[in-house]
């Protein structure tokens, strides 16, 4: 029996067709994956099902056999549809309990919330699905995995029969992902229908029964997961054959250590020690990966390395030169480049033109300014060179950064940092939110830079990215260097991924 059927659903924003004549048929009680690249229109489609967008006229949504127009999220909820967004929609200063009941709080005639009654019902749900939670914790104090469980309970508390999950494993550790798979199986066992939006192929293989592929807003096809290989899924998603692994030649390090982090200790604004006795070296001609779960001190580490945060004790050396606690400007001038984690907030001034963003660190220097006055001609010349070399589109240095796509924004940062000819480049989540083409581009550029003999520190929450690119891998856990895995082990250990996952969670492989 079909739980949900979409026929010829389209959605246009202005002149942009986000969804074009999409069909979808989800069986009752199955796990159905929606596969597509970033920007393929998966999220738009789900927002239509959840009532956040109204589709263009002409399409139909059929829910349990009845034609339905889903007006609002509230309406969707009343129809038994629940959604867990990729960016959790939880109120951080509220407790888990408050978050779960928000919107349908049991209350007395005075409007006073009956927390007792709510708690009782939620505890029943927790028992039924075997979820582990402390209801009185505040969201800001619990892990991402817990937050996801809260989101799932929210949908169950609202009696959802169909649960949509948007990129559910993007922020989870391998261990948390395992727990997540268990939860999904529990839900399925209780007869719930699950729709998962993802671009991760192994995830589909792991839990989905069927998979619908969309590309550039168009429906491609629906396949049975058991009889389709990962490579087939990938080529259907991208529309051409793709390499699942980055093509790279073995590194040829000359062994020269160019960047040393010695016994680093960093304290954050809450006086909490977020980096502890961290010692790590980078060699020229190598990509060194740093794996770890979000929030284990990566941000603080990068801030300390680039001079944005005070180092409490320890040393940072670049080519034997001490750069500890120098200003960001001086560190940059010592040939340390950085692709920051948050490109829109930190990497770029979004309201500045492309050409202005290219000289963010260098506006004071010749030829870009003279006696304090900007030489506009030089800015344009410099940016046109970089725009050509890095194929930034559209190729117009007068456009503001905000008007570009995510991939092209990242290219600006990449171009700017590479143009400085750094000895060491820190790449922090360099492919976050980019589509497959842009990801491949960034990876190729990093490898190119490596082959020019630069040292690269790749910090990423995507374990696959770290494993695919790195010649050496460190694992950071609670601010400590938890493991240091050499090239040989990377190449030979068949259980590499599982081991790193365990390190990331603070364990040690047996």
């Amino acid at each position, binding site marked *: 029996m079909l739980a949900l059927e979409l026929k010829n659903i389209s959605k246009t924003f202005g002149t942009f067709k986000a969804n074009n004549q999409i069909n979808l048929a989800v069986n009752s009680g199955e796990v159905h994956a929606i596969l597509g690249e970033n920007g393929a229109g998966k999220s738009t489609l789900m927002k239509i099902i959840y009532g956040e967008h109204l589709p263009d006229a002409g399409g139909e949504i059929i829910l349990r056999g009845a034609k339905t127009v889903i007006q609002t999220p509230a309406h969707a909820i009343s129809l038994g549809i629940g959604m867990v967004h990729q960016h959790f929609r939880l109120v951080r200063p509220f407790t888990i309990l408050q978050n779960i009941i928000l919107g349908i709080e049991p209350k007395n005639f005075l409007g006073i919330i009956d927390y007792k009654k709510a708690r009782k019902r939620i505890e029943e749900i927790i028992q039924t699905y075997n979820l582990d939670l402390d209801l009185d914790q505040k969201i800001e104090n619990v892990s991402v995995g817990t937050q996801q469980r809260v989101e799932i309970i929210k949908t169950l508390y609202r009696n959802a029969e169909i649960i949509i999950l948007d990129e559910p494993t993007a922020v989870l550790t391998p261990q948390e992902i395992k727990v997540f798979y268990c939860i999904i199986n529990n839900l399925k066992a209780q007869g719930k229908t699950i729709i998962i939006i993802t671009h991760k192929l192994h995830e589909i293989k792991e839990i989905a029964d069927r998979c619908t592929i969309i590309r550039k807003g168009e429906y491609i096809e629906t396949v049975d997961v058991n009889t389709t290989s990962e490579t087939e899924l990938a080529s259907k998603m991208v529309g051409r054959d793709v390499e699942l692994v980055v093509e790279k030649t073995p590194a040829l390090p000359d062994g020269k250590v160019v960047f040393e982090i010695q016994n680093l200790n960093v304290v954050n604004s809450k006086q909490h020690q977020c980096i502890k006795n961290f010692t790590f070296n980078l060699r020229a001609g190598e990509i060194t990966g740093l794996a770890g779960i979000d929030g284990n001190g990566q941000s603080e580490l990068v801030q300390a390395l*680039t*001079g*944005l945060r005070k180092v409490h004790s320890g040393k940072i050396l670049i080519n034997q030169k001490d750069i500890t606690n120098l*200003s*960001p*400007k*001086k560190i*940059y001038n010592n040939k340390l480049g*950085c692709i*920051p984690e*948050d490109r829109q*907030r*930190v*990497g*770029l*001034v*979004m*309201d*500045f033109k492309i050409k*202005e963003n290219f000289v*963010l*660190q260098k*506006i*004071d220097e010749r030829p*870009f*300014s003279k006696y*304090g*006055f*900007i030489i506009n001609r030089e800015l344009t010349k410099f940016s046109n060179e970089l725009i050509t070399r890095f194929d930034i589109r559209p190729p117009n240095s007068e456009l503001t950064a905000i008007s570009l796509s995510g991939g092209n924004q990242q290219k600006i940062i990449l171009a700017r940092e590479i143009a400085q000819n750094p000895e060491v480049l820190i790449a922090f989540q360099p492919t976050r939110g980019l589509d497959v083409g842009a990801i491949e581009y960034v990876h190729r550029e990093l490898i190119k830079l490596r082959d020019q003999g630069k040292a690269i520190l790749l910090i990423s929450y995507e374990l696959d990215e770290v494993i695919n690119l790195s010649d050496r891998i460190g694992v950071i856990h609670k601010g400590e260097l938890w493991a240091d895995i050499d090239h040989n082990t990377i190449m030979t250990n068949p259980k590499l991924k599982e081991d790193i996952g365990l390190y990331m969670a603070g364990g040690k492989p047996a």
Partner: protein
Amino acid sequence: MKKFIISALSIIMGFLIGGLVLKLSGISPLEAYQVMWEGAFSQPNYISYIIVRSTPLILTGLSVAFAFRTGLFNIGAEGQFIIGALTASYLGFHFNFSPWIQIPLVMILATMMASLYGGLSGFMKARFGVHEVLSTIMLNWIALYFSNYAVFIDGFRRPNMETTEFINESTSIGILSKWKVSDAGLEWLSNHEFWSSFMRPPVNAGIFIALIAVIVVWIILNKTAFGYKLKAVGFSPAASEYAGINTKMKVTQAMMISGALSGIAGATHVMGVSNNVAVLAAHEGYGFDGIAVALIGSNNPFGVLFSGFFLGALKYSGQKIQSTLEAPSEVIGIMIGAIIFFIAIPSIFNFVTKSWRKNP
């Protein structure tokens, strides 16, 4: 260009709403606007009055706009104006050099004091995280009461008056202010009707200083590496810090420049118009009007120049409806409020442009 259109549409809305309020109060809007128009432009002295009135508004507007461009909301132009005015009147009374030294000296010192006063807010923001809106509001009141205190200092106070002594003649930036009351001046003017009218208000060189300030601010913001960095900090403090710009220093510097501009406003007002400082019961509103000027001029130096004149004209001609029609001049405040209100919601004009596109 888009911002200019929004300002223009907002001004039209302001006049419509002002007219509506007048109409509801039983006053003919057309008549009122006619009185205002004539009251603003029908005589040479009206125009020179408007220029004199606009000078401090352009400068405080520039002050607020400069801060806005660097991501700061300077509500403290009022207090910085007071400090500039007080310093100018104090030094203008106590110093007496030749005008060539006296005028720049007094002007520069008054500007510096106001600059430090504005910079204090910037420093408190950079160093202690105190929001500039809060600190500038407090500093406005401190400046007001301190000025009132200073006015009463013996030797500075004009005996038995609630004002200070007048500044020395050598401090005045009035244009031909002595000549126009001399016998020769009076005789020449009596034969030249236009100039006789035009020179009646306290015409002074302040407007030229304001014009220079407009150009300098435009150059700083658009042509210099310093201005580039200030704007970067205004748009994105995090990106600026990452790029090695000392954001704390820039915040302080931006507030110092903003304060300096308001200080110049206060100094030119004393040196060209009032010649002394009086006890204040409440704020005179130069700082608040500066916010209006900056917003209507969409924080562009030349936009500010225009909106400064516009607001000056509006406020001056607004008085005329009070005397002629007994219509409350506060309708001007309502109009300014309405204009800013519409500037705050540019999206409301989208339907105008949209319907244009659909039915050209």
